[in-house]
């Protein structure tokens, strides 16, 4: 087993959860050390502005 795989199977789990908070809460409920990163999608640029930008760049 690679050293990296050992780092996963053989060690205490330490988790970064990016996105849905339910997964953070469920891991915390299992006494896993976990931190939450909230994700917000970048704002959608209107199609016409996108077309203008792509012409300019």
């Amino acid at each position: 087993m690679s050293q990296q795989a050992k780092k996963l199977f053989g060690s205490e789990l330490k988790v970064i959860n990016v996105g849905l908070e339910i997964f953070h809460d469920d891991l915390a409920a299992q006494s896993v050390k976990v931190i939450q990163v909230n994700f917000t999608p970048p704002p959608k640029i209107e199609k016409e502005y996108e077309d203008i930008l792509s012409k300019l760049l």
Partner: protein
Amino acid sequence: MPFVKNVVKGNFYKDSLQLMQISEEAKKIAGVRDAAVVMGTSTNKELLERLGLLTKEGRDAREEDMVLAVMVEDEGQLDPAISRLEELLTRPAQAKARAYYNLDEALSAMPDANLAVVSVPGEHAKEIVKKLLDRGVHVHLFSDHVPHEDEAYLKKYASERGLFVLGPGAGTSIIGGKAIAFANVVNRGDIGIVAGAGTGLQEVSVLISRAGGGISEGLGIGGGDLKDYVGGIMALDGIRALEADPMTSVICLVSKPPSPKTLEKVISFVEAQTRKKYVLCFLGREKYEVNERLRGRVFATKSLHLAAVRAVGLSAGERAEGMIERISMSRDRLEGLASEIASRLKPEQKYVRGLYTGGTLTYETMLIFTELLGGVYSNAPIDDSFKLKDSYTSFEHTLVDLGEEEFTAGRAHPMIDPTVRKLRLVEEAKDKTVAVVMMDVMLGYGSNRDPAGAMVGPIREAVAIAVKDGRELPILAHVCGTDLDPQPLREQEEKLAREGVILFPTNAQMAVVAALAATRGQIPKDVKDRVLKEYLGL
């Protein structure tokens, strides 16, 4: 007559789970009969329509808009209800110890992180996952809609660094005994699972645990891994890791049919470069024949049920027989149950309707039905000629995978949000030709906290519709879970049993009984014998 109002908020985003929670709270606002807050996808608009909650304003909403919908008895309650709903939407989130908005900050705060669970929209996954891999962090990638080229790139990149990218679309993993995303709490033991099928991993790990065996690690590699565009990168890395893992003595590989070249590659690897015991469960019509030299060490199965049975057999040796009895019914018992159900049916009740939340369980049932019933219609059929014209309307024998895109765009998965299945069950009850309705009830972390309880109301309504019509409607269910789950198995099964639901220890057994009951056992003996042997080991 009730009054309905929709308010559309342009470019306003919250994830589907947050919106589901707000919708549930909104239903409790004084004077509100029903309410929903959803993103303006066509799926959600269809559902609002069926609930009587859609107005012209909502119909015009775009995908990136949010729709607030309320139904009240008294017109004067409309505006106060909408105001209260706006308050619910804008109140600050419950205080967590600390939530980060920047991945670099999070990586600095936990420099020894060894796993990341990523559930962001698929088009944003690559950048995030690559950064995590660069920092030496394994990734469980829950997101779906990750472009194939991104998946192939990330897996190659991870493999070169000795890291896992589990997923994309990985619903389930079990690592170090902890349930990741949608997974059950199972016994620990010596059986390792590599699965390209989320509910496949759940079913096999649950059945092994219920038989008294246990799981060392369960790696959900995503359905695309065994396709040629990835070429089984994580399947092979997973097998290598479990081969080297001292906790693991039996390795179970679970997948829908792999692409032919990748299948060959994986089988050659198992044959030539491994020494532990293997169960290869490739769900599909073709049966992989184990090379003569490997008999006794490598077994091939066509069902999740038999994968669990074989894995327990390899793990427990002589003790296995008594263990397997805990999850297996005898042939006499299965046929007796089917006859008893058939005796309650009217002649016109001929068709099976399966309302599934688990994709792999739908697929396992579809394979069994294709053999026992011939054609079975579905929104996700094996054979495209049996594709339902409208996913919302069943035809003859029908299996619906409620986790497919048309039911989930902009909504929480049906394992969390039972709304779509609740409506569908009542619809099926109105059809006089339906013989039995069958469903899976998925327990574990990630899932709804009371999935059986959520179905009690619709079950009563469905049974009442049938009774009023002078017929019975037998409802069959398989609860996939353990007593260690957050929703203990026994409590969940009791809730269904009290409503007269017939329960099965495995999905495959439920499928066989449903088919035998609907056909009154009129299936050629050679076909029945073969299916019972190949899928149930009887």
